[in-house]
C-alpha cells in the first residue's frame, strides 16, 4: 500500500465516487477500506460509507472477502481483465451465455453449442461464476434446472416465474389475495346483475366480465407491487375456475376490441355451486382421517370413536 496521494479538496460526493473508482482502476485486484482512508484522510467515515454503498448498489463495485479483509474491486474492469486473461474456451462459453440473453441457457445446451465435454464446461462455468461474470438462476419452469446468464442481467419472467415469484420463491399469499379479489369483483358483478331485474338473458350477460375488465380492476386496486399483465390475471381467473366458483366463455370479437386477443375475448362470471355439500361430509366418518383403521371391536371403532362423541355432544 504505497503511493498515497493526499488530496484535500475531494469532498464533493461525485468527486469522491470517481476518486474511489480511480483508485480501483489503479489496483485491479481490489482495494481495502484502508486504502481509501489513506487516500482521503480528511473524509468523514460516514461520507466514505455512503459513497461505497452507492457504488456497490449501482453495480460499479464488487465487495470481495480476502484474507486481508474486505476488498472493493471494480466490476467492469475486473470482468474485462478476467475475460482477457481467460483462454479461448472460456471466451466461447461466455459468448454462448451472453447470446442466451435474459432467458439464460442450460448447461447441456452450452455443451451442444460449444462442442466441449460436459466436465470441461462445468469447470469453466464454475470459474466464470466465481469471477462473477455469470450467474446460475434456478428456473421455475423446470425445477432443479439451472440456467446461466450474464451476471448483471435481469432474468426473464419465464425463468423467474414472473409476478408470482420473488427470488424463485412462489408467493402463495399474493396469489391467494388476487384470487379472492378477482372472485369478489365477479361476485359483485353477478349480484348487481341479479338485482337489476332484467330479463334472464340480459341478466346473465351482464354478469360476465372480460379478462380485460378484471385486469383493470386489479391494477386499479394497486395491491400488486409488480406490474401484472392481462395474462397474469387470466392465470388467476383460471384458478377460480378450478375452485368451481367461476365459469368461462370465449367469444369471438373484432380485432382491436378492448381485451381482444387473437380475435377472442374471454368472459368470466361468478357461479353458484350445482350441489350443496353432500350428506357424507355431515358425519364424522365423512371427514375422518383414520377411517380405514376403524373396525368393529378394534381400538378405533364406532363405539370408541372420540370424533363421534365430540360431535354428538355438540
Amino acid at each position, binding site marked *: 500500500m504505497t503511493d498515497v496521494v493526499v488530496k484535500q479538496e475531494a469532498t464533493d460526493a461525485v468527486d469522491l465516487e470517481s476518486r474511489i473508482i480511480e483508485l480501483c482502476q489503479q489496483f485491479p485486484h481490489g482495494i481495502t477500506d484502508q486504502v481509501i482512508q489513506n487516500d482521503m484522510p480528511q473524509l468523514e467515515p460516514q461520507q466514505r460509507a455512503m459513497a461505497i454503498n452507492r457504488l456497490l448498489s449501482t453495480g460499479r463495485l464488487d465487495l470481495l472477502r480476502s484474507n486481508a479483509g474486505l476488498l472493493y474491486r471494480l466490476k467492469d474492469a475486473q470482468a474485462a481483465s478476467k475475460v482477457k486473461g481467460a483462454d479461448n474456451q472460456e471466451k466461447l462459453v461466455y459468448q454462448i451465455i451472453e447470446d442466451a440473453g435474459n432467458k439464460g441457457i442450460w448447461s447441456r445446451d452450452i455443451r451442444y453449442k460449444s462442442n466441449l465435454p460436459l466436465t470441461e464446461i462445468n469447470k469453466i462455468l464454475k470459474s466464470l461464476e466465481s469471477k462473477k461474470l455469470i450467474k446460475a438462476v434456478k428456473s421455475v419452469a423446470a425445477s432443479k434446472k439451472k440456467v446461466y446468464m450474464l451476471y448483471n442481467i435481469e432474468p426473464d419472467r419465464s425463468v423467474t416465474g414472473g409476478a408470482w415469484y420473488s427470488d424463485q420463491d412462489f408467493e402463495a399469499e399474493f396469489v391467494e389475495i388476487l384470487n379472492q379479489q378477482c372472485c369478489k369483483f365477479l361476485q359483485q358483478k353477478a349480484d348487481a346483475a341479479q338485482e337489476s331485474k332484467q330479463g334472464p338473458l340480459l341478466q346473465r350477460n351482464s354478469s360476465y366480465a372480460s379478462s380485460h375488465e378484471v385486469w383493470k380492476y386489479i391494477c386499479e386496486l394497486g395491491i400488486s407491487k409488480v406490474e401484472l399483465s392481462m395474462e397474469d390475471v387470466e392465470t388467476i381467473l383460471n384458478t377460480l375456475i378450478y375452485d368451481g366458483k367461476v365459469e368461462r366463455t370465449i367469444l369471438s370479437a373484432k380485432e382491436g376490441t378492448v381485451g381482444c386477443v387473437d380475435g377472442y375475448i374471454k368472459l368470466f362470471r361468478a357461479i353458484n355451486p350445482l350441489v350443496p355439500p353432500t350428506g357424507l*361430509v355431515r358425519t364424522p366418518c*365423512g371427514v375422518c382421517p383414520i377411517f380405514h383403521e376403524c373396525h368393529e371391536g378394534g381400538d378405533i371403532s364406532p363405539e370408541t370413536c372420540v370424533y363421534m362423541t365430540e360431535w354428538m355432544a355438540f
Partner: protein
Amino acid sequence: MAGRGRGRGQMTFNIEAIGFAKGEALPPPTLQPPPLFPPLEYRPLPLLTGEETDYLLALKQELRGAMKNLPYFIKPAERKKDIERYSDKYQSKGPADNAIDWAPDWRLLPRELRIQVRKATKAKKAVVKTQVPKPEKSKKASESENLEMLKNLETLEQKEQQAPSDEDGAEEEEKEEGEEAEEEVLDEEEFEEETDYVMSYFENGEDFGGDSDDHMDEAVY
C-alpha cells in the same frame, strides 16, 4: 450398529441420515405414543335441519318401531332358560320355530317353504284374563309400597305390552273367543298397539352383535 459406542451410544443409526447435523440438539424424546385419534383437520358440516328433516326423523323412528311389531319380525325361539322367571308365564308364548305368524300366499312360494301358520293358543287367552285384575293391585300402591311396586315393575311392563289398553278390547276378545275356538288364530295381543311404536325410538342395543341374552323389547320412551 455403527452408532454403538460412539458419542451418541443410544442411536442405532446414523442420525445425519435423517437430517440432523452433528452436534445438533435432538428433539426431546416423545413421552407419549401418537394419539389414537389425531386432532381433526376438518370438521363435519352441520346436519341439515328443518321441518322436512324432522318429519323424516319421526318417520324413520316410527317405521323402525313398527317393523318390530309386524309378524315379519321373527324373534328367535326362546332358548332354554337357566332361570325360571316370574315374567315367563306372562310372556306371549315364545315364538315357536315351527309356525309362522302371518299368512303368506302359498300360491306364490315354493312348496318346500310351506310351514304351519300359527294356531291359536289357549294359554294366551289365559294371560289376558289373568292380567285384567292386575292393575287393581298397583292402583292401591301407596307411598309406603314403593318398594313392592318396583318389584312389580317388570310384571307391569309385560302387562303394558300384552294387555289391551282398554277393557273393550278384552271384552271383544272374549266374545269372539267362542267363534274362534276352532279356527287357527293367533291372539291379537301378540302384537303391540300401534301407538306404542309412535313413541318408541330406541331399540334394543342387544340386537346388535347378535347377543340376545336378555330379551327386552324396545323401550318405550
